[in-house]
């Protein structure tokens, strides 16, 4: 039974012609670059909270920056005054006094003054409030005093010269005390700040929309609306930039840079970050308990090649244990690429025949490529490196185990200086108090002199003394080499050519406060 039952009467040729016409018409259907009153920005992760005291993620900080301000803040990585017109620390850095901007109101009409600052920070310090993250960050704060209507003093439990940097971070930004009183635990979804934009809506997991605040005390925003869209898939994000559905995307994969650069209506933006990529060595496990071995590994790696291969050139070689943009950075003598010296050091330490070790790292292209480059370079000096890529949750579990349970020999991971200041960066990575599971000293580095110097740097507000203390601490850490000091990756973003004022901040969030169409 193979008879053709339903015979087609439409001629084939006509059908083909129709199809061709449609395709031609559609191809010409270009989409003009978006203009208008909204700039749309795509982030790779969604927001969890819009309450500055509670939010822990980078996407949260990106949105919070548009609506909230702190006494001080960071612009382009530098510490600047925001709601405080001036400030000073007392002699032993146990109290900071701030003169406040006048004529400022929160989005709900509450006036901004010393009392408002006190009310807000009192709430932050209250154990029962949802601001756990801010409370942990500002733990040194004991009380806030209203000196007069526009002067406020923050008292600390002990000397802390780095405290001003903590106040500049996203978690320290100030929300309206009236909103705190009204919403309490639901402050997460009711952001009321003093910033150039105010809240419109938040569809969780999808987008946040903010609009221009017409009563802003500073220079008014240049765009009517900002929409932050959550697009988790990198390829989708890039496609949306190309199609004009969004005007800015973060985390542009290095492999796609050429595609975006080639597009006439799109730009690629690269900038320095506060992030580092390092090979952490567990100093409690042989052979990494021997400083010569650790230094040998530093000499065995050509960091510039790593930057060029694994990051397509979008990375800078580290010159100190903290990022170059952080206060207290002191450039150290480079561990130049010297495989002969590396082999000599290994032999001296008794490992002339080399050894095998496992490097734990995250999944994904960046860490895979970086790991492979390291593998190659280590094999040139007789070392056999095994790369163990693990999913983020599993890796975090393993790396935070205490010393006696921790099986990690080495880890190719990241570190950051989120306060742009040496104190937090050095303390969380190199102080004894930061041994896992408490914090990120995954190499279990311990040095008495460094402990002294970190305390000294914290104990004064005088920048020169702090700089000296940190310079000496960094020199010791650099020489002791608990890490193989690799690179600081750049942030790479894509942006529509007719948009400006949206940039990547060094902490890998997006600063969209000055966004506008050209």
């Amino acid at each position, binding site marked *: *039974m*193979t*008879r*053709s*039952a*339903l015979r087609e009467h439409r001629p084939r040729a006509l059908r083909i012609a129709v199809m061709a016409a449609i395709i031609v018409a*559609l*191809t010409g*259907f*270009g*989409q003009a670059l978006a203009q208008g009153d909204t700039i749309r920005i795509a982030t790779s992760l*969604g927001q*969890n909270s819009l309450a500055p005291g509670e939010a*822990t*993620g980078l996407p949260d900080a990106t949105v919070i920056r548009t609506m909230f301000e702190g006494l001080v803040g960071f612009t382009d990585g530098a510490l600047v005054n925001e709601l405080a017109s001036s400030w000073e620390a007392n002699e032993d850095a146990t109290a900071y006094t701030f003169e406040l901007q006048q004529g400022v109101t929160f989005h709900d009409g509450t006036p901004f003054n010393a009392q408002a600052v006190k009310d807000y920070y009192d709430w932050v310090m209250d154990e029962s409030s949802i601001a*756990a*993250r801010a*409370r*942990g960050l500002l*733990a040194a704060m004991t009380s806030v005093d209203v000196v007069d209507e526009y002067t406020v003093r923050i008292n600390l439990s002990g000397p802390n010269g780095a405290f001003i940097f903590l106040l500049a971070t996203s978690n320290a930004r100030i929300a309206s005390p009236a909103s705190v009183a009204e919403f309490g635990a639901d402050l*997460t979804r009711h952001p009321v700040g003093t910033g150039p934009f105010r809240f419109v809506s938040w569809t*969780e*997991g*999808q987008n946040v929309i903010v609009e221009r605040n017409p009563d802003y005390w500073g220079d008014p925003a240049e765009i009517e609306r900002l929409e932050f*869209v*959550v*697009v*988790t*898939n990198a*390829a*989708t994000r890039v*496609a*949306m930039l*190309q*199609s*004009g*559905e969004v005007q800015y995307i973060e985390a542009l994969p290095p492999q796609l840079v050429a595609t975006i650069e080639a597009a006439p209506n799109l730009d690629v933006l690269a900038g320095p970050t506060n992030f580092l990529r390092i090979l952490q060595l567990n100093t409690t496990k042989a052979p990494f308990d021997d400083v010569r071995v650790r230094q040998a590994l530093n000499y065995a790696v050509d960091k510039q090649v790593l930057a060029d291969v694994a990051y397509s050139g979008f990375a800078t070689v580290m010159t100190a244990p903290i990022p170059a943009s952080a206060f207290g950075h002191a450039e150290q003598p480079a561990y130049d690429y010297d495989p002969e010296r590396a082999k000599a050091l290994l032999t001296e330490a008794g490992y002339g025949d080399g050894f095998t070790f496992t490097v734990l790292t995250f999944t994904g292209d960046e860490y895979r490529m970086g790991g492979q480059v390291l593998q190659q370079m280590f094999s040139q000096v007789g070392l056999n490196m095994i790369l163990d890529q693990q*999913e*983020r*949750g*599993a890796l*975090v*579990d*393993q790396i*935070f185990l205490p010393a006696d349970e921790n099986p990690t020999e080495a880890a190719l991971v990241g570190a*950051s200086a*989120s306060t742009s200041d040496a104190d937090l960066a050095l303390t*969380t990575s190199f102080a004894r108090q930061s041994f896992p*599971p*408490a*914090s*990120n000293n995954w190499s279990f580095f311990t040095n008495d002199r460094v402990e002294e110097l970190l305390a000294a740097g914290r104990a004064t507000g005088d920048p020169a003394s702090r700089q000296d203390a940190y310079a000496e601490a960094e020199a010791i850490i650099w020489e002791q080499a608990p890490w193989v000091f690799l690179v600081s990756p750049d942030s790479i973003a894509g942006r529509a050519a007719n948009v400006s004022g949206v940039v990547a901040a060094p902490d890998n969030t997006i600063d969209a406060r000055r966004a506008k169409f050209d």
Partner: protein
Amino acid sequence: MALFLIKRLVQAVPTVLGVVVLIFFFVRALPGDPARLYAGVDSDITVVNAVRERFGLDRSLPEQFVRFTVQLARGELGQSFRANRPVGQVMLRHLQPTLVLGAIAGVLATIVGVTLGIAAALRRNSPVDLGITSLSILGISTPSFFLGILLIYLFAVNWRVLPVAGSLTPSGLVLPAVTLAAGAIGTIARFARSSVLETFGNDYIRTAYAKGLPQRVVINKHALRNALIPVLTIVGLQFGFLLSGAVIVETVFNFPGLGWLLIQSIDARDYPVIQGLMLVFALQFVFINLLVDLLYAAADPRITYE
């Protein structure tokens, strides 16, 4: 019939409960600490512990399980770690997109798949048949991730006729629905083709021709109707698989449905939401299977249920 329904529903309860209990222990066995993931890697241990307490994860495993079952008996699914809202509320937000996408993809797959399958059977071994069979295999074996990106590149980036991101608008549903339906179309088409061909081999077809009935009547009135009954089972199963297929498609197209929510929740180790979603998926499978059995009985007079 009513008795049959009740019996089936009662039988489903242990299955669904079994799935939920299994998931409860399984997610807690996974590496990755939800509290630390929520608090951030650079957070102080005190913050992490405060978060862990809020999630109820500081309690022992048996105690967590008891609280969970008590809660479930009350009809509550708990509080999402990430969103700090009831799980039911979170899932409800993401339900409509998945239902709409699934329905459209399912209907599309059924109509196109059955049509292609019949066409292939009627023109067996012709170029048309070969073309349809090849397309079916292509549809089944092409990963939806790849197909989705390809369609995005062609239609959204290159020709700019459709948006990249999926949404509940006519243009925003086209690409996700087509991507989701692709595999189902292939399966349904192949099955429909073989079912129709098998029906043609039956005696009653020969009798119908012998009676002098025109080909059109033989096919439409006698062959197709019988051929399509087993196809119904396949269609039903495909509807069931659409929900799991949606996980990938929703991620690629940034389409905020239940599948997308599942990926986000697993990434964040949001145990209560993962458990809630697994419950929904299990219920959905049971329900669809039941529906297919009922339709089967309605379509085929030879089948009755006690």
